[in-house]
């Protein structure tokens, strides 16, 4: 029996997407879970997986725009079945509609045991065991959902902004595609005020120095500047370092592109330009596009011990900074994708940053 792969809603606002790759040929063998296509929404690249073992026949073509509910492909048990399906699908549909269906004996038996009348079966167009099972499952789900609704009605509810929902969707997608893992080091006796003076940093913001060090180190630690996709590692040539800004509603990540080309003073100027553009809501799409590595600094909020930041889409690592001014402590936490890197490599990377922070970049 053939199964269909339908394009489902991916984000809050996107109801259409573009087919950017088809990884199989028509009538090629596929296994359940194997990536058969990639679709691109306005926010993310999404892998479409086979929902069954068998032979595939695409119903879409490369670069085609598809809508939610559109059929991407059909998987059949044999090539012949697929051929028959594609040749006769229209004829079959007509036949199916004309054919007078009868309720199978087994279906009637199940219906009787559950006190479902024959009229209900006919009304709901239930003729087979599969159909009655789906009907029972659906009824149970509906009951469950009513229960949930009654339970949730007791609470006050607030809808997050569109931007926050989009942030949630992006982060969910990136976490589901990665194996996030974290690793921390603590730098004791770290005096941020002296450090800022020595390095000519404004407002004790360490981003310029950290970004400069990371840009140098990522040339060695290539696994932390890429992404894992379809069982392969992909490496970025450029080093685009983003930093997180909490707008009080959602997180924005402005990006210093090609960070490896700048020294810390130039990075500092770019940082303040981007920060100003963000605060004044004048930031452009290109200024928040394509971070390959992200730095998240919670130090300005308070004396945080450490936090484990979430990976941004299409990145393999994010560095969390936490400075405790009173305890003279700096904690560096790296969240990385375990498909790309390892705990050992993450720790060596953090140690390399520690060495350069304490001994000068």
């Amino acid at each position, binding site marked *: 029996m053939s199964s269909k792969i339908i394009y489902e809603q991916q984000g809050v606002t996107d109801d259409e997407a573009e087919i950017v790759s088809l990884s199989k040929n028509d009538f090629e063998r596929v296994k359940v879970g194997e990536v058969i296509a990639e679709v691109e929404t306005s926010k993310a690249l999404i892998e479409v997986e086979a929902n069954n073992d068998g032979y595939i026949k695409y119903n879409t073509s490369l670069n085609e725009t598809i809508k939610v509910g559109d059929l991407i492909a059909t998987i059949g048990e044999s090539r012949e079945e697929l051929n028959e399906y594609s040749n006769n699908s229209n004829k079959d549909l007509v036949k199916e509609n004309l054919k007078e269906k009868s309720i199978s004996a087994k279906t009637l038996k199940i219906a009787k045991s559950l006190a479902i009348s024959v009229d209900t079966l006919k009304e709901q167009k239930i003729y087979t065991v599969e159909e009655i099972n789906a009907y029972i499952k659906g009824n149970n789900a509906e009951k469950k959902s009513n229960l949930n609704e009654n339970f949730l009605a007791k609470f006050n509810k607030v809808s997050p902004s569109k931007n926050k929902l989009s942030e949630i969707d992006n982060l969910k997608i990136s976490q589901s595609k990665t194996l996030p893992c974290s690793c921390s080091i603590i730098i004791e006796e770290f005096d941020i005020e002296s450090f800022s003076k020595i390095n000519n940093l404004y407002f004790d913001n360490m981003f310029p120095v950290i970004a400069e060090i990371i840009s140098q180190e990522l040339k060695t630690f290539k696994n932390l500047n890429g992404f894992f996709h379809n069982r392969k590692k992909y490496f970025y040539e450029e080093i685009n370092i983003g930093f997180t800004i909490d707008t009080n509603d959602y997180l924005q990540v402005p990006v210093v592109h090609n960070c490896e080309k700048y020294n810390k003073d130039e990075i500092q100027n770019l940082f303040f330009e981007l920060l100003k553009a963000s605060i004044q809501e004048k930031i452009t799409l290109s200024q928040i596009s394509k971070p390959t590595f992200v730095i998240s600094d919670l130090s*300005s909020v308070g004396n945080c011990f450490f936090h484990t930041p979430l990976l941004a889409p299409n990145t393999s690592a994010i560095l969390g900074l936490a400075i405790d001014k009173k305890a003279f402590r700096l904690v560096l936490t790296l969240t990385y994708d375990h498909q790309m890197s390892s705990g050992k490599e993450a720790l060596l990377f953090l140690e390399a940053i520690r060495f350069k922070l304490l001994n000068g970049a």
Partner: protein
Amino acid sequence: MNKNEVFCIVQNTFKNIFNDNDMVVTYSTNSDELENWDSLNHIKLMSAIEKEFNIKFALGELIELKNVEAIVNLIINEKLE
């Protein structure tokens, strides 16, 4: 606009940005003294001041301003002439 009038507006802008009406802002108030005066709040502050006086700070000026007196003097001497 004289120096005191500029100072009063700057003082109120600080109270708004730091969300603290009881905040004491003097000419000597500086970023080392105010814990919340970090890079994010600094840019918020400078953007609000630019709007208030209808002026623009160059990036170099903006990041160098670390105390209230320097902010008031720059507004008086260079921006409101």
